[in-house]
């Protein structure tokens, strides 16, 4: 990227000090993986939300979160050359651009025998192993490393199945959980065996147990901390949450991650006590209702702020639920606890959905946040290259409108009489990509945001009393 452009782009403003500390933290983590490689530590390519974070930590394996590095390239607006390289290798540009960026980078690094020139933050370390974790979550997780093996045939892959059941009317998850849990446990044990073979050392299950304790404690703390954002004005928005997700998703099972949320919790409580919000005059409270952000355009959150809109909540990267609200059987086996945590997370909204006719867990999640965070409108982002997190979003909005009339208000009728009605919940669907900047138009995006703000304004003023 041209130096001039780098200088021109100012650092994005965050509401919390905690969020501002993330950039250097990620940079240090990426630099740390390169140093770890030099020191001969075992490096594993892997994906976030993989469930086995604590297993890797317990085995002293250094994870390289390949989606993260692609996101960094995107955020630094330096993904294009890697995307183009992947395209030149025969991969369609319509595929997951995280994966394309990673594949372009890997092939270039393998071809050169060193990091590609001016690789963002020093580059991505060559792995000793690649750990896929697809199953129901994401096709590219199943295919990315397999494709990368074309350039790194000597690097072994271990694929871990991590299933969870989709929501069905006629089948309660408790009726089928036994075979799901059994398979997840077997898959995790298979992973441990693989890692033991790769590292030549045995798993220390006491250590793993301690790390799972820490992971569970971190989950609960994150939940409690994020719930603080219910406050009016909200002390932290989604723009910041796209930073504060880093310890949750890249560092789970470390004391550093836990301490980060202790700090964030304290900071948010102090801001609430001072009634200090993301912005001075909070006019609209919005829910980021789905979709990964455009990492190169996080400043759009600041643009929303400039219009009086804040995001007290988001479903994206809210990858924890309170453990104390999940069913966790009494067991000393940390592998079993991990399996139940995984299962419990994914079925978390199922029973709530069952109670509302026409509802669905994804829709129920939106409804809960609309109510808990006093939401005025919903924003989603459709990233063209990612089917995993973006298919079904439009339907969720339509289904929400169908089954949920959220905010009872009095409406002034034509005859001048007051009638009971429901306030509208406007929504906006932005369209672009996670890292492919060629799909993005700042002018169009901001025009759409402006129009949405006008809608919010008219709904708020409208004829409601």
């Amino acid at each position: 990227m041209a130096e001039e452009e780098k200088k021109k782009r100012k650092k994005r403003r965050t509401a919390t000090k905690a969020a501002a500390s993330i950039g250097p933290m990620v940079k240090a983590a990426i630099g740390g993986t390169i140093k770890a490689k030099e020191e001969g530590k075992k490096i594993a390519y892997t994906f976030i939300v993989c469930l086995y974070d604590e297993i890797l930590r317990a085995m002293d394996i250094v994870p390289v979160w390949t989606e993260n590095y692609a996101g960094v390239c995107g955020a630094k607006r330096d993904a294009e050359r890697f995307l183009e390289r992947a395209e030149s290798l025969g991969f369609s540009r319509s595929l997951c651009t995280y994966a394309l960026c990673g594949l372009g980078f890997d092939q270039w690094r393998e071809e050169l025998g060193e990091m590609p020139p001016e690789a963002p933050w020093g580059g991505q370390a060559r792995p000793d192993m690649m750990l896929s974790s697809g199953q129901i979550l994401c096709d590219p997780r199943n295919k990315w490393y397999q494709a990368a093996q074309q350039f790194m045939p000597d690097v072994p892959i271990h694929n871990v199945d991590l299933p969870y059941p989709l929501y069905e009317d006629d089948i309660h998850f408790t009726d089928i959980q036994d075979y799901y849990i059994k398979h997840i446990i077997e898959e995790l044990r298979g992973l441990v065996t693989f890692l033991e073979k790769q590292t030549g050392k045995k798993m220390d299950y006491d250590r793993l147990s301690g790390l799972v304790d820490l992971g569970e404690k971190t989950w609960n703390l994150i939940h409690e901390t994020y719930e603080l954002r219910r406050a009016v004005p909200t002390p932290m928005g989604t723009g910041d949450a796209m930073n504060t997700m880093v310890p949750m998703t890249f560092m789970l099972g470390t004391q550093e991650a836990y301490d980060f949320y202790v700090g964030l919790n304290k900071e948010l409580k102090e801001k609430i006590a001072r009634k200090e919000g993301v912005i001075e005059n909070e006019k609209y409270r919005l829910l980021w209702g789905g979709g990964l952000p455009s990492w190169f355009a996080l400043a759009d959150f600041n643009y929303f702020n400039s219009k009086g809109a804040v995001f007290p909540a988001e479903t994206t990267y809210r990858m924890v639920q309170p453990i104390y609200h999940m069913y966790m059987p009494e067991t000393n086996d940390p592998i079993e606890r991990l399996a139940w945590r995984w299962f419990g997370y994914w079925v978390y909204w199922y029973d709530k959905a069952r109670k509302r006719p026409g509802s669905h867990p994804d829709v129920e999640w939106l409804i809960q946040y609309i109510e808990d965070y006093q939401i005025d409108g919903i924003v989603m982002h459709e990233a063209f290259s990612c089917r995993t997190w973006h298919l079904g979003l439009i339907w969720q909005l339509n289904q929400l409108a169908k089954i949920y009339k959220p905010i009872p208000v009095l409406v002034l009728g034509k005859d001048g009489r007051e009638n009971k009605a429901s306030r509208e919940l406007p929504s906006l669907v932005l369209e672009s990509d996670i890292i492919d900047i060629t799909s993005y138009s700042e002018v169009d995006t901001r025009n759409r945001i402006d129009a949405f703000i006008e809608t919010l304004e008219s709904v708020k003023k409208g004829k409601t009393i």
Partner: protein
Amino acid sequence: MNEKNKDIFSRIESYYTDYGQRAKELKNEGIKIIGYMCSLIPLEIITAAGCVPFRMRGDVHEPITKGDINLETIACPFYRSCFDLSVKGKYDFLDGSIVAHGCDSMARTYAVWKYTLDLPYSHFVNLPHTISESSREFFRAGLNTFRKSLGKFAGKEISDDDLAEAIGLYNENRDKVRALYELRKPDPPIVSGTEITKILTVGASLPVAEANKLFDEVLEELRQRKESPFKKVRRIMIDGACMDNIELVKLIEDLGGNVVVDTLCNGTRDNLPHTDTGNDPLSALADRYLDKINCPRTYRENKEQDLQKELESRFGDIGFFARESKADAAILYVYKYCDPFGFEVPVRKAYFESIKLPLLYLEDEYSAGTIGQLKTRIQAFLEMIQ
């Protein structure tokens, strides 16, 4: 022409053109029709429940309009077309739909289908991605859940004997498809790729016993062809996912190639592998749909850490069918937004290169609107391999 079978091809044409006509008749007789779209659905369980599995098709000539209201345009274009037709009422005769965990386009939109179409029955078949003892056991348990769920809907407890009988019928069906493919082996072939596509597409819209009977009649008729009605030209293989419209195959054949074999979902991928018999039928079904169907969505461990051996292990079936059919060249046809196949394109190309089979790679949308572009590229390719 054999008198008994003289109208067999006009019957196939009628079933192909008015797709679903037999399913509608059966529906009027009180039989439950269950729609599906992927080769990973265990049809044997649907048949054993006394229902008729019906493979939903898209329509490359129908612009996607109403479907876009609830389903994003970044989904698989084939899948979007099927959804669009469903929303427009083309498949109103369905009593239920089964969605497989084939890919993200299917898995992530299960709720979209379920709630939008609001059919009396729906079920998601959750296939694991790995192949191991544990995943087989998991999948078997999932199939048992499906058996109970569908049985409840159909009002019939599905026994092992019911399953065994259905497995027998489908294995018979696969033998007949195999026999049809044998007729593609002569040079020139006895049956064209266009005809085969129609026959197999129609077969997937009928109860398996009727499809078997139809295939018998077709085979009898085709065996009457003492001489091939086709020219001796370049023999083409098609590799890819689902192709339920004749357009591409017909285009190739109109341009002067004979399509003699495929590794497509509704071709050899689904229609040839048998289910083992004699043991636990659910385990045998789990084994077939998880392991025997070579779909890129299922991860197969690379034990060798050697690219060439890895290629052979994953794509050996392509080489096998290409050799068996004496294919001169191949076309790899992949839909836009297809992650499972899309990530394999470079490695599939490498495999075709390793077996020295000239390859044309086409990424396409599920639309007749692209036929002009395809024509230019295929024409150039056929000229190149002359």
